[in-house]
Structure formats: structure tokens, C-alpha cells
């Protein structure tokens, strides 16, 4: 796909390249070059992402937006309401648990499967088959993942049947509706549906590691574990850190999965920031406070993103 596209685009761009007769012009051009490369991205993100976000920030400072004909500026009142709401604190706690465990598990499963699938002692066909199997959970829309797991985990579902037949439990386990099991259960579903993505990225990263490094390590008599810790992990580190950050951000906004399996329940045990915000917006009908909650999340992740970028820079 990319291969066929390459020549076309190249042709398209070649004539646009600048005539470089004068040095000053050339220098100015050089300084503008990175912005040129960035311009399509910036135009798209500013129009379609930053604009709505700015509008949401505006909503968060008003009362009764959208749902009433008139609304007034109320300053930070909505923020106070969100930040002092114990339900919000609970949602943040659940979200951190959910996202934290998911990211760690995605990484562990992702790297384990990627290493197995990358082994040179397997034939190409074998690898192709297993790679395809391991990527399966990723191919399904989250609505179906939710419905499927509701079916599997229901009190009369196949999982309970197996648990009972194998004698692990006398009665059926209420995976999703027992207040103490629901959060681990939705986290498990999220782990299932999300690890292939980590795996694919790590698999691609493994291709980029030069065999020379392993050979050198072997000559130094480094064992498999040492090689893994001193060659594989450091080489993959940039990918791992980026993936972990992104995965964390995405998992915190996972909405459909939670909504369609537990609806935030039982009681408030699986309430996440995303379901909390949704209920404010479309159930309580309070877009102002919902917007404030969204902005709080945005600020938190901006802090996260800031440290990430600083880390990237210091690494360079």
C-alpha cells in the first residue's frame, strides 16, 4: 500500500522544491521547512481538535450550556463542583486502577508474545499463522467485545460453566455484578482486547534491532536473560515508553467497554472518569459540569505529556 503510493507523491512534490539562488532566502526557507512538513497536521488538528476543545473550555466556565436557551459566565464554579464531588474522586481512583493495570498487562503480554512470535527457529508459515491468531481480539469493535464478554461471563455463561465443571467454585460467579469482582473483570476484558496493539508495535520494534548486538552479547557470554535486559529492553525503550503513555491516555478514556458491560456499576465500583462525564452530559444533562470534568482530564494528561516530551528531549 505504501509502496505503491511512494512514487506518486514524490513526483507531486518535486517541482515545488525551492530555487536556492540567494543564501538568505535559502536560510529562511530552511527555517520554514519543518513548519511546512507540519502544516497539514497543524491545520487539521487546529480546526477539528483544538476548536472543539476551546469550545468545551468555554462551556466549562458557563452554566446550563446547550440545555437551556441562556447561560451565564460562572467562572470556576463548575470546577469546584467537580473537584469536590466524592463521586469524581472515586471515578479517578477507578480509572487509575483500570488504566494502570491494563497498561502493565498489555506490556507484559505484548512483549512475551512478540518475543515468541519473533523467534528465528520457527518457520515463516507457522509464525504467520500464530501472529494472526494473536492479533484476533483487536479486530472486533468494542461494542461486540462488550457483548461477547457479557455473554461469556454471565451467570449462565461458558466461563461459569467451566469454573463449575472444573470444580473451582460451587455456584456461579457473578463476575460483572459482584461489587468486589466487577472492576478486575472489566480490567481483564480491556487487557484482552488491547494487548495485540502493544504486541504489534513491539514486534515491529524487534525487527529494528540489529542482530550484531545479540552476537556481541553472545561473545561476551551474556545469557538469554542478560541479553533480554541489556539488549532487547534498552533497544525497545523508546517504543515502550511511547506506547505506555499513549495506552494509558487511551485507556483512561475507554467508555464504550465499561458502559456496555457494567454501566459503571454495580453501585459505583466501575465508575470511570469517562462514564462519570457521560452521565453528567447525557443523563443529568449538565454539559457545563461535564465540560469542566473533561478539562480537568485534559489538564492532567497535558502534565503527563509535558513530562514525556521533556524526557524525550533529555534522552536526545
Amino acid at each position: 500500500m505504501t509502496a505503491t503510493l511512494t512514487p506518486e507523491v514524490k513526483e507531486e512534490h518535486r517541482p515545488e522544491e525551492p530555487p536556492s539562488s540567494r543564501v538568505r532566502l535559502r536560510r529562511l526557507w530552511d527555517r520554514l521547512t519543518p513548519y511546512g512538513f507540519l502544516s497539514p497536521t497543524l491545520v487539521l488538528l487546529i480546526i477539528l481538535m483544538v476548536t472543539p476543545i476551546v469550545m468545551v473550555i468555554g462551556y466549562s466556565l458557563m452554566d446550563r450550556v446547550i440545555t437551556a436557551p441562556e447561560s451565564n459566565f460562572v467562572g470556576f464554579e463548575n470546577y469546584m463542583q467537580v473537584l469536590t464531588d466524592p463521586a469524581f474522586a472515586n471515578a479517578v481512583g477507578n480509572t487509575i486502577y483500570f488504566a494502570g493495570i491494563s497498561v502493565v498487562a498489555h506490556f507484559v503480554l505484548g512483549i512475551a508474545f512478540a518475543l515468541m512470535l519473533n523467534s528465528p527457529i520457527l518457520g515463516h508459515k507457522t509464525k504467520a499463522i500464530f501472529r494472526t491468531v494473536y492479533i484476533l481480539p483487536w479486530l472486533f469493535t468494542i461494542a461486540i467485545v462488550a457483548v461477547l464478554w457479557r455473554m461469556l461471563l454471565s451467570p449462565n455463561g461458558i466461563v461459569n460453566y467451566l469454573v463449575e465443571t472444573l470444580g473451582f467454585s460451587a455456584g456461579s460467579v457473578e463476575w460483572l455484578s459482584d461489587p468486589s469482582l466487577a472492576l478486575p473483570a472489566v480490567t481483564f476484558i480491556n487487557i484482552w482486547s488491547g494487548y495485540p496493539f502493544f504486541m504489534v508495535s513491539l514486534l515491529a520494534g524487534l525487527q529494528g534491532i540489529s542482530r550484531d548486538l545479540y552476537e556481541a552479547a553472545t561473545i561476551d557470554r551474556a545469557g538469554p536473560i542478560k541479553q533480554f535486559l541489556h539488549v532487547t529492553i534498552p533497544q525497545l525503550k523508546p517504543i515502550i515508553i511511547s506506547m505506555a503513555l499513549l495506552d494509558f491516555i487511551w485507556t483512561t478514556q475507554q467508555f464504550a467497554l465499561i458502559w456496555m458491560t457494567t454501566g459503571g456499576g454495580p453501585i459505583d465500583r466501575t465508575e470511570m472518569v469517562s462514564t462519570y462525564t457521560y452521565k453528567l452530559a447525557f443523563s443529568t444533562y449538565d454539559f457545563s459540569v461535564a465540560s469542566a470534568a473533561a478539562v480537568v482530564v485534559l489538564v492532567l494528561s497535558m502534565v503527563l505529556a509535558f513530562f514525556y516530551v521533556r524526557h524525550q528531549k533529555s534522552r536526545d
Partner: protein
Amino acid sequence: MTAVTAAGASSAATAPTRTDVVRRQRRKKIALIVALVLGAGFPALPIVWMVSSSFKTNGEIFEYPPRLITENFSFDAYTAILTDPEKLRFFFNSYFIAGSVTLLTLLVAVHAAYAFSRFEFPGKRIINVVVISVQAVPPITLLIPYFGLVVALGLYNTYPGLILTYMVFTLPYAIIMMTGYFNTLPKELDEAVKVDGGRPFTALWKVLIPVSVPGMVSVGVYTFMIAWNEYLFALTLTRTNDMRTVPIGIQLLMGQHAYEWNQMMAMSVLGCIPVLILFLFFQRYFIGGMSAGAVKA
């Protein structure tokens, strides 16, 4: 993991006899395959159940004790979907939109990533922070202003409306990942082009992109899947069923009073088959990357 490194070790070692090496290799291979088969149960078993459900009647899906294959095994659910032009249209829309998003995202992202990876310029860090963090706003809260914007731009109920929307979702990730891949490539590669009088564009397209294909494939797969699976915006930004995608088609089977379980499952199975084939095809690029590494070694 042990297999990778041990294989390297045994080829470098000189002492053991040839048969020893072969035998040890074979044992390792069997152990690895056993591990892979066992591990495969994790992703595959729920999906086996999905496929089995798609051949059942709605009543049988909830039978207890559950059975993998029931006496009423039938293709009815598949026939119902494949003979309904509206549902086929959902499939076409999904592929068309996801395909376009993938191509365009990659095209736009490699340029942005090149800028981030190879240039220093004022505002770089702040643009980077913005690119990463805009993804964090829960999409559901953006829905209403976003919807107003799309209507205002005249993109409501059009393919470009959905395609551009998904690009906004997928670009940040694509840029971050492509920047990462470019960063792993030595700068000397594109310096060489510049010494020969080439411009940055030439360096990007002639040198960096060809060696980044594995990275681009995995970014592309991700992009495709996001566009393929998205539900909320796909529903809100479209008005008529001829513009809608598979996830909405599946949701339409979840009625107010009852679900068409078998058809939902069948539609998911049908939806993923072409993606699987696509994935099988693009795997060649992973393997390509691998053999290139082997040649170097």
C-alpha cells in the same frame, strides 16, 4: 525470548556436535510451539465462542449447559446479512473509510514525524505536548461542539466528514510512533542524500520511508482498526444508513426489546475476515524486515 537468544548462542558456540545442536534446536522448537498454542487460547477461545454463536439460533445461544455446536447449526444469520443490501453497504463504507484514513494518516504523519525527528524549531516542544494531550479529552464531551463544527463545514453525512474526523484521532499516535521510528534511524542516512545535493524531501522519501516500512505497517494497522471500530462519531456525524459503518450496523441489531444475537456475532465475524486477510498480506513486511536483518548479520 529464550528461544531467540539461545538460538544465537548455539550458532556461535563451536564445541557441541552437530546432532546435539539439531536435537536441542528441535526440542526448543517444540517447546515454543506448545507455548504458542497454549497462549493462543487466550485470544482465540472467546472468538471461537463468537463464531459458534453465529451458527446458533438466538434461543440456543443462552442454553445451559452451553454447547459449542448445536443441532440447529445453520447459516441463517449469515444469509440474513449477506442478502441485505443495506448491511452490505455498511461493509463497503467501513472499508472505504478505514482504507482512506489509513493512507491519508500515513501520508500526513510521515511528514510531521520527519519534522519532529530531524529539525529543531521554535515551538517544537509545545506542539508536541499539544499533539499528545489533545487525545486525552473524552470524545463524548467533544461530541456536541464537534458536531456543530462538522455541520458548519458542510461535512455532515459525508465520507470526508468521517475520514477527517478519524484522521484527527489517529494522527497523534501515528506521528509519535513514526517520530520514534525515524529517531532510531541514524542521521547519517539522510545526511548522505543532502551531501549529494538532495533536499529534505528526497531524504525522507528516498531513504527514511523505504526503511521504515515495518513501522508504517504497524501504524497503518492501528489506524485502520481505529477507523474500523469507531462507533460514536460514526453514528453522530451521519444521518442516513447509506453513510454508516459496520459498528452501527451491529448496534442496530441491539433493539429496545431484544437483541439479534446470532446476527450480531455473524456480522462481527464477517467484518473481521477481510481485515484478517489484509493482515496476513501485510505480515510480509514484518518478515521482510526480519530477513533484511538476517542479511546484515
